[in-house]
């Protein structure tokens, strides 16, 4: 078990390494950094000095090596716009995005699992049909459009909830959180719900499919034949089998929730990493983009690792060493 985890960590490090290459090459393709960094009015001598200072006259692999060394020292350069270390700029906005993503994931499970369970257990009832048809709507609606409609309806027309910003925050562990104040929570609700809707539909359909698959199994018949109550059959024997894939997907999709927060943060002016990255792309702020990508990659690799381990803990049939690919 320990050796397998070690192996998995090794794989994760390898993926990280591959991504540094991809990111480095990708970033070198964005425009010409010299034009961007150096004022057009600079004299040729000044130009040469600056190019040498940024190391842009070096061979590409030397530049890559410097990039790696910087990475090892957690130095990802200084933002052109903010004039601050890029990593610090990103990390300042990290809690806001995490808060939004966690809340959205929580909401999507809260909506998706019970509805999916209901639709799976009563496949022929009109309510189930309604749930399933609505779920198609749920993953058809583009997130940005739903966000706009939320603002139009709940903020502009009804005036119930605020449409932008984080509201009042509380500082815990040196980071600011919205969900601990009533005002912050009211600011959090709309964006979180917006982000949750797509995932909720996904979880709903997954849960229903799981129930439909588990119900005809012999072990469910046996549980009935043992004379257990219908509640116990569903909540003990069916549910655990259904939840194993659902938990895995919720974990894996967490990364995707963070990625899609780009959209939601833009619409609700939520001061997180997503809004920052869109601004940085438009401003060609390279260090920020690189720092963002590296943090996201680290986050994803960690999530995949945790989900893998979680999966083997949950499902006794899976031996850790054999889950090479899914």
């Amino acid at each position: 078990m320990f050796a397998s985890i070690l192996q998995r960590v090794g794989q994760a490090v390898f993926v990280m390494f591959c991504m540094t290459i991809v990111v480095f090459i990708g970033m070198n393709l964005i425009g010409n950094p010299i034009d961007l960094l150096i004022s057009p009015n600079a004299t040729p001598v000044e130009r040469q000095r600056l190019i040498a200072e940024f190391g842009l006259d070096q061979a590409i692999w030397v530049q890559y090596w410097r990039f790696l060394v910087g990475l090892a020292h957690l130095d990802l350069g200084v933002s052109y716009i903010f004039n601050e270390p890029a990593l610090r700029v990103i990390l300042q906005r990290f809690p806001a995005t995490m808060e939004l993503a966690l809340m959205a994931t929580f909401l999507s499970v809260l909506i998706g699992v019970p509805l999916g369970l209901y639709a799976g257990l009563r496949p022929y009832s009109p309510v189930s049909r309604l749930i399933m048809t609505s779920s198609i709507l749920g993953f058809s609606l583009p997130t940005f459009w739903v966000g706009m409609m939320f603002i139009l309806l709940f903020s502009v027309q009804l005036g119930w909830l605020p449409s932008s910003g984080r509201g009042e925050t509380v500082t815990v562990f040196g980071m600011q959180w919205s969900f601990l104040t009533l005002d912050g929570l009211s600011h959090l609700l709309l964006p979180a719900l917006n982000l949750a809707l797509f995932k909720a539909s996904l979880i709903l359909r997954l849960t229903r499919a799981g129930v439909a698959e588990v119900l005809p199994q012999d072990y469910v018949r046996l549980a009935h034949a043992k004379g257990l109550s219908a509640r116990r059959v569903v909540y003990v024997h069916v549910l655990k089998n259904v939840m194993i894939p659902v938990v895995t997907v919720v974990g894996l999709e967490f990364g995707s929730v963070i990625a899609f927060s780009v959209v939601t943060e833009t619409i609700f002016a939520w001061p997180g990493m997503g809004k920052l990255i869109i601004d940085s792309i438009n401003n060609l702020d390279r260090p920020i983009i690189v720092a963002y990508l590296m943090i996201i990659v680290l986050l994803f690799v960690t999530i995949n690792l945790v989900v893998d381990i979680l999966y083997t803990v949950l499902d006794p049939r899976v031996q850790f060493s054999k889950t090479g690919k899914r």
Partner: protein
Amino acid sequence: MAFSAQLRPEETQPILSVSGLTTSFKVARGWKPVVRNVSFDIGPRETLAVVGESGSGKSVTAMSIMGLLNPRTSLIEGEIRFDGTSLTRLSDAKIRRVRGSDMSMIFQDASLNPVYTVGFQLTEVLRLKRGMSRSQATEEAVTLLEKVRIPAARKRLGDYPHQLSGGMRQRVAIAMALACKPRLLIADEPTTALDVTIQAQIIELIKLLQDEEHMSVMFITHDMGVVAEVADRTAVMFRGDLVETGTTQEIFARPREAYTKALLASIPRLGSMNGTDFPQPFELIDHRTGEPVAAAATPLPAAPAGSLSLLDVDQLSLRFDVRGGYLNRLIGRVHAVEDVSFSIAPGETLSLVGESGSGKSTTARAIMGLSSMVRGDIRLGGLVAAGPKAAPRSVLCRKQQMIFQDPFASLDPRFRVGDLLAEPLRLHLKLQETEIEQKVVALLRDVGLRPDMAQRFPHQFSGGQRQRIAIARALALDPQLVVADEAVSALDVSVKAQVINLMMEIQRERQLSYLFISHDMAVVERISHRVAVMYLGRIVEIGPRRSVFENPSHPYTRQLMAAAPVPDPSRRQLRRGLVADEIRSPIRPKGFAPALTRMIEVAPDHFVLDLPDHAPEFP
């Protein structure tokens, strides 16, 4: 109100009384009855076997009694009385109280929840149905596991179902069914998914527990051999109707109904061929009229003795790597086939018989070039048939062909039958379109199908008909050798007999050789000239069928013959003794050097493996 709390009624009164049971399933328009007007009783301590082929409604009958059918999609009419109380009128909650305590059920396989331990699932019943505390339940669970003869019972409580073998899982399921001391046990094909030696153990166990626990048993099966071994009385079902009931002796000795006669005529009986040398077709009976089917084929002539062999397999070995652990290292190898040699003469049938993991199918696949072999030599009439120097497929495919086990998977569902048959002809023979059409028609006729069926798709045929199509396809290029890998195992009894007869007739017409792979000793006895018994990758005994069956010399062959259920009620009292043996694994550590094969000739042309280690632990 628990039934067991009541006083026991008169011993003669039936425990279960079913009258006029009709079960219907919801279809597109209305209800379609799948069980029609079925009535029977089960007395105290009595065993009733309900026997029938697929689609007979035997399992649906059991599910109706247990109330396990979904009321939304199924409709139960008629009367089901358990110990005098009508079950059809009980509420769902009350039926659940009867279920699992007074009346319990075991299923075919995989019926344990994969994500809970054996201990959890056993104690769950004890705590919820018998109100035991956690520690009491654990103790009782150990007792129950010991009762079903599971070794090291206490350790098994922490195991998950997938860590146990199929036979052990079925024992756990039986222990669970016994948890509340039921008065009726319904066993729905409990041994069908198991190997024959394990099946014998489970049947033995059920018989013994019935005596110990004083329960009645309703035993559902498709296997007349099993019926003869377990049942006091037998009910025969066919397409939803109860055809005939009676004592098991009566049913076997004097069947009244045409269908029962037809069914009995199509069962191979182990030992019925003693004293004969050659294969013999079944003498079949029409299930509608009860009359013998015309033209029961005559016995086949002998394989020409001393002639040159068609297929030679010499020292074939085949291994699969087992990987795992850190960096996916090689941790061992499955020695699937180990130093196997045999030959087949033209017009001869050699059967490879053995249980799962014996390597019989792997051997067949290696001969067909479907598994890459590790060592050895396979020659087919002068051609190298497998390995790096093998003749091209386009040459080999005209000499050797194969029939697969599952008739539902071996035909491409998107091709019409005519195109399926014409495909090899078009690819390998330079024929005119009209000639191809004629050949397709002739092939269909040869396997007993109508020429107009060429226009249909595979899904429009029954399993037996599909296997006939697969045979026709194998015959299309007029091969000399046909490898039949469990080709009749998936078929119903009566269809199986017909397909076997068909294979024998084709053999006589075309002087074909068969390599017949099977786990069923009785079928093998019918069809073979010679037999090779495989165990853990090796041939342990090989020789003329008569010599091997009349004088089995290897302990494993004897065990296999003893375990095969015999459809003869007079052998019912025979007890085999209780062992909880497992089929051993053919996985060996890395670098394992197998012993050299030594064979001893015990009779003319009849050889037995002389490796004392290579035998079951409890012969």
